């Protein structure tokens, strides 16, 4: 599929999401917001997990930090959008400093450390009751306007964030940084030999993977008006996001978009129709994905698949 066609389809998809308030009910608009949100998170993860190949499970840590880093300034009177920018900055710096330390680890150990981060940050926030409200949660000043106005506003916000991360993804993909990360992902020692400053590049990737999660978190806090530690630092989220990226094709530009959309739509379908077993079905999807789509949806050669199916049915003696 030529590149230009892919971007046209992407634009069509964004328009479809953005236009939901015009032709769909509230429930669908809400779904669109969630899709935009997770697409932004998945695109973010793609920098460290897809481009650099480091299996990070820190998404929830950065998202949650973003929630609080956005909520606290707002409660102190800072205007909403500025609070979001501050949250982005804060989470970015946090990730950069942390990255210098934990990016020395590889493989399993890195995965564990990144997982542990979620728990540690959650526990710290929970315990710091005076500042964060602890387990009781924190209220955030609500945006004025009725529910449909609020929904439309935040649909716009989440889509905007998604587009920003998408643009950054394209920039990185074509840049020296992207090339270097690809080298690191394929053979880190060889990358070092060839002149890539691997530590620096990994920290860049980790920071990029974090800062926009912070933005999404801060916006999410403003949208829902209430956050608490268990909601903001969800293990399910921190595992779902890499899975979405894998589903679409980690390391590609559009993979995260396709993966997040496909996953969430499937999840919604199963939640609506098989409420009791929806987790099991999610689990089954994941298992099937790992077995049959190791490279993700975007890396299947569809023309290959098509020619194979055609060939099979035209062979003599083949069952129709």
């Amino acid at each position: 599929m030529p590149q230009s066609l892919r971007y046209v389809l992407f634009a069509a998809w964004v328009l479809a999401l953005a236009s939901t308030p015009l032709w769909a009910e509230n429930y669908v608009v809400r779904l669109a917001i969630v899709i935009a949100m997770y697409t932004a998170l998945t695109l973010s993860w793609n920098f460290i997990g897809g481009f650099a190949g480091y299996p990070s499970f820190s998404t929830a840590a950065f998202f949650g930090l973003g929630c609080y880093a956005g909520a606290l300034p707002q409660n102190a009177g800072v205007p909403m959008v500025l609070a979001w920018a501050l949250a982005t900055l804060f989470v970015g710096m946090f990730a950069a400093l942390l990255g210098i330390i934990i990016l020395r680890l590889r493989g399993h150990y890195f995965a564990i450390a990144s997982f542990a981060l979620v728990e540690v940050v959650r526990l710290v926030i929970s315990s710091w009751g005076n500042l964060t409200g602890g387990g009781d949660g924190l209220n955030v000043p609500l945006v004025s306007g009725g529910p449909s106005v609020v929904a439309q506003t935040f649909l716009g916000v989440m889509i905007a964030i998604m587009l920003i991360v998408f643009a950054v993804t394209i920039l990185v993909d074509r840049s020296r940084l992207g090339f270097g990360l690809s080298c690191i992902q394929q053979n880190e020692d060889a990358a070092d030999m060839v002149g890539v400053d691997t530590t620096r590049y990994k920290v860049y990737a980790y920071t990029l993977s974090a800062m926009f999660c912070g933005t999404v978190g801060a916006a999410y806090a403003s949208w829902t008006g209430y956050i608490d530690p268990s909601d903001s630092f969800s293990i399910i989220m921190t595992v779902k996001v890499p899975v979405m990226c894998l589903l679409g094709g980690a390391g590609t530009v559009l993979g995260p978009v396709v993966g997040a959309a496909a996953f969430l739509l499937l999840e919604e379908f199963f939640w609506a129709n098989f409420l009791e077993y929806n987790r099991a079905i999610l689990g089954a999807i994941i298992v099937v994905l790992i077995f049959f789509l190791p490279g993700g949806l975007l890396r299947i050669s569809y023309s290959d698949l098509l020619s194979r199916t055609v060939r099979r049915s035209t062979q003599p003696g083949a069952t129709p």
Partner: protein
Amino acid sequence: MFHLQTLVNGVVLGALYACLAVGFSLVWGVLNVINMLHGSLIILGGYLTFFAWHSFGVNPIIALPGVALVLYIIGYLTQFLVINRIVNQPVLTTLTLTFGLDLILYNFMTVYYTATPVRVTLDLGVVDFGGVVMPIDRLLGMVLALVLTGILYLVMRSSRLGRAIVAVRMDRTAAKLMGIRVHRIYAITYGIGALMAGAAGAVFAMVYPVTTNLTGAFLGKAFVVCVIGGLGSVLGALVGGLVLGVIESFAGQFFGPQHALTVGFLLMLVLLVVKPTGLTGIKGFE
């Protein structure tokens, strides 16, 4: 006196942690697979034990071997049919797969058993040892945990199977060349991992209430124990478990119970950066 009680509490807790984590450590160290199912398998063991006791009046200590066997079979089949196919893939793949499997198991358990906490209540009273108080059922739990861990240690040390497993852990290619059927060892090891999880769950159910909500917490504990103690060895799990138990006990005493967990995780993070192979220095894979 005060601190002795805390220490004893810590040791008792630590023994349970060691037993809980040893199966996880084995699977990670030998198969290089992070088994996200581990927490659920523990709870499953707990539930099976409870229902044997509650519905059929079977004494939990007698039920234990049965539960262990059931879980071994489940583990063996899971590895043989599913996990063996992707066992050499990178971290993200294996972790995600076991996470997916765990979602399935978790869902079925929640639907079948519901999330109501259940516990085998053995009213055995309390023992007082010069000011240090310990409920007997907890003491029993500790003893059982240590016995189980000890049996596994002996199996690993002295049986042919144990030596084969260790060989695969050290160098799977060399093991293959020596005629060891690595994929069968994988299935057996995973089966043992599941067995130990189930047994730990059975012991746990005698001491504390179990519920599906605890699967994540147990998994987390297993991680921490492995990082503290070192991967792939029973000794590592024992050291890690005891250290964690004691630290949590003291942290709970000095900083309050809600911080006990944080300290554990912080310790794990620090160790990961400073000495990822843990206190016993046994290496897992990278």
